[in-house]
């Protein structure tokens, strides 16, 4: 490899307490969360103390860990070959995230196209549905579940409206506009870094973080609307299940992305990143574009079609 010839010394860090610290903190989070969920399920009050402690510990260790990585980078011991490892690492991490969402999209398509129509009596497997729940009508969104006593359906759904005036008030459309613009603003921030315009970086990156926050607020608004006015909850059958798991995990990823971009913004104010070396920022922007692409797929397959 060309890089290793120009920079023979690939920096291998000395031993570090961060990884085992994260592992222990994750264990704390997970043990706490498991106990909490089981306690709630069996009618207890549940305490989130342990899981919140775990979460706080994760963030604490990450703070030190990232601080060390940033310091290493600023000190110049990180050669181009090591930087390339970070690039590969981020790329493959995003691929793993794509596959995580693929599982939920797969569930959505399977349920919509196959499971619901089989339950409604279609095809070779239809006989089971016909025998168990003869009055179930296959439709999407499923408004009346095969067994409405066990799983009462939603009163209304989130599907895109048919009239232009209703579209103007349709929150997911505005969320799409917001996220797509934020992809553009983060790109403008990248161009500003490449052109070494510090003021413009702060402006565009700040705007991106702001758009991310607005998206999250609107998403919360949409959930409140769904729970309180539409009667659409996690418990309303397969439509609610797929709707909330897809939009929910997307929202969780937007939260993470906004946090990462906010850290990048903080680093810009600290004078980090230059036109040659800004992968910390670029990784954040890749993540942001990925989250954006997931939303576009969501908008089409969860809301419109």
């Amino acid at each position, binding site marked *: 490899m060309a890089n290793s010839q120009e920079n*023979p010394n690939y920096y291998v860090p000395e*031993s570090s307490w961060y990884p085992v610290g994260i592992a222990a903190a994750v264990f704390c989070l997970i043990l706490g969360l498991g106990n909490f969920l089981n306690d709630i399920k069996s009618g207890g009050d549940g305490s989130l103390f342990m899981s919140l402690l775990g979460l706080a510990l994760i963030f604490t260790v990450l703070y030190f860990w990232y601080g060390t990585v940033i310091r290493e980078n600023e000190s110049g011991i990180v050669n181009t070959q090591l930087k390339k490892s970070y690039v590969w690492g981020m790329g493959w991490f995003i691929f793993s995230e794509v596959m995580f969402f693929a599982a939920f999209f797969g569930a959505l398509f399977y349920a919509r196209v196959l499971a619901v129509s089989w339950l409604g009596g279609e095809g070779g497997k239809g006989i089971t549905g016909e025998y168990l729940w003869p009055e179930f009508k296959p439709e999407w969104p*499923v408004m009346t579940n095969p067994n409405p006593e066990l799983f009462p359906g939603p009163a209304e759904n989130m599907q895109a409206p048919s009239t232009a005036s209703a579209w103007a008030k349709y929150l997911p459309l505005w969320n799409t506009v917001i996220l797509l613009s934020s992809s553009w603003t983060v790109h403008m921030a990248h161009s500003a870094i490449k052109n070494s315009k510090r003021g413009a970086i702060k402006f565009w990156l700040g705007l991106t973080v702001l758009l991310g926050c607005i998206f999250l607020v609107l998403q919360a608004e949409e959930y409140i609307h769904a729970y309180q006015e539409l009667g659409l909850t996690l418990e309303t*059958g397969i439509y609610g299940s797929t709707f909330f798991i897809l939009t929910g995990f997307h929202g969780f990823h937007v939260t993470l992305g906004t946090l990462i971009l906010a850290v990048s913004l903080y680093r810009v104010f600290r004078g980090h990143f230059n036109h040659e070396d800004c992968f910390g920022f670029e990784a954040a922007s890749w993540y942001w574009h990925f989250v954006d692409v997931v939303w576009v797929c969501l908008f089409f397959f969860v809301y419109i079609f």
Partner: protein
Amino acid sequence: MSEVVVGHDHHDDDDHHHGPAKGIARWLFTTNHKDIGTLYLWFSFAMFLIGGCMALVIRTELFEPGLQFVDPEFFNQMTTNHGLIMVFGAIMPAFVGLANWLIPMQLGAPDMALPRMNNLSFWILPFAFGLMLSTLFMEGGGPNFGWTFYAPLSTTYAPDSVTFFIFAVHMMGASSIMGSINIIATILNMRAPGMTFMKMPLFCWTWLITAYLLIAVMPVLAGAVTMMLFDIHFGTSFFSAAGGGDPVMFQHIFWFFGHPEVYIMILPAFGIVSAIIPTFARKPLFGYDSMVYATASIAFLSFIVWAHHMFTVGMPLAGQLFFMYSTMFIAVPTGVKVFNWVATMWQGSMTFETPMLFAIAFVVLFTMGGFSGLMLAITPADYQYHDTYFVVAHFHYVLVPGALFSIIAAVYFWLPKWCGNMYDESLGKLHFWLSFVGVNVTFFPQHFSGLAGMPRRIPDYALQFADFNMISSMGAFLFGFSQLLFMYIVIKAIRSGKPATGQVWEGAHGLEWTIPSPAPYHTFTTPPVVSDSNAHN
């Protein structure tokens, strides 16, 4: 085999690195690929013994018909945890441990690409398995729904401990994904100058493709258990037909992960055997290029065969035909591999040291497991074989004398490089013959009881299966206790074996054999020069 030329004396170049830290801190905080490889290997061996004890509980109960030793409920927990621990705790971490030890040395890299993350991928595992094993002591017992954790057994009817099982799977998945990202980054970015892709040892190639499979499917498994978690705690109905979902959907998602997972557990084995057979046949590997392409083909096909695990759940005829033919098609690249190993041995100057014995047993017995796999791929025949001991015999033939034998072979093959000492060859051969006999006595009769209709995952059975089960149980104890001999041989070699040379094996080729034994704490801190003279590997 490539004739690698090391350009300069790299192993003394240690000026900006220190040796290992002292005491427990070395193992907790290490970023060294050799330390982390050792941790992975010992961890997986511990899990192998725990999972093995569970197997012996199963075989003890099945020694005779009737219920003698354990409750059926506990028996179910044993089958479930035996499978989960062997797959996720023994086989997979052992391969990652080998990858950690070998890939940097085989590529001429100073370490793994992302050393701190490397430590994190390992240290998640003891927590994950501690959590999973602790479920056995919880109220209501541990997971009891089979290692495939089909819904609704694992959701509606699961014990409360399933929540912790789900989180443990999340942690194992995170560990695998990080480990794989590290391996891919290392192979793509850390090869020494001149180590082109088509010169890499096959172990690196097979691990590159395995890592890709892991990153592609572990998140899908995470998605599956997440949906389980939501069905259990948040009232969703992904896997409940009453709410418009489908329990069969769980099986589809699980096996979309599960089938590539099967190849995740065998592709690195192919790489190991492809290193050992040429060494002891003293011939270059036959058909290196075709080995690479065959591995890639198997990986591709692994994504489009998953439903052959569920022919009997009811699926459209077109689906059954597609999954039957695509499954059979995998025999083609696999056949290429077996042919190449045999052709490598053809007219070679063969010697039969312990690693070679395990490698040859691998080729023969893995191929048998492959053939019974072909039988299972035939949809109409599968209606008869499904969920019988024939399936158990099939996958144990590919996993025990397949994956596990390759790991044992790798340990014998590279142990002198790791610890600097040779193992005791006669004891090694004894271990091989005990294992070889034990594994066949255990699993071969299961083909017959399966074909005769004995279902899997039951603590009691009809009288007609008694003889085969008794033989099987005796084999299991022989095989299980032989592995204590393995532990003794390894520890004896580490503590008091005869010193090994750097070359170790007369016929060994590759960068890892150009450094002294034991391998220094840091190797190739400046990259070696790999000549681009002649062939591959």
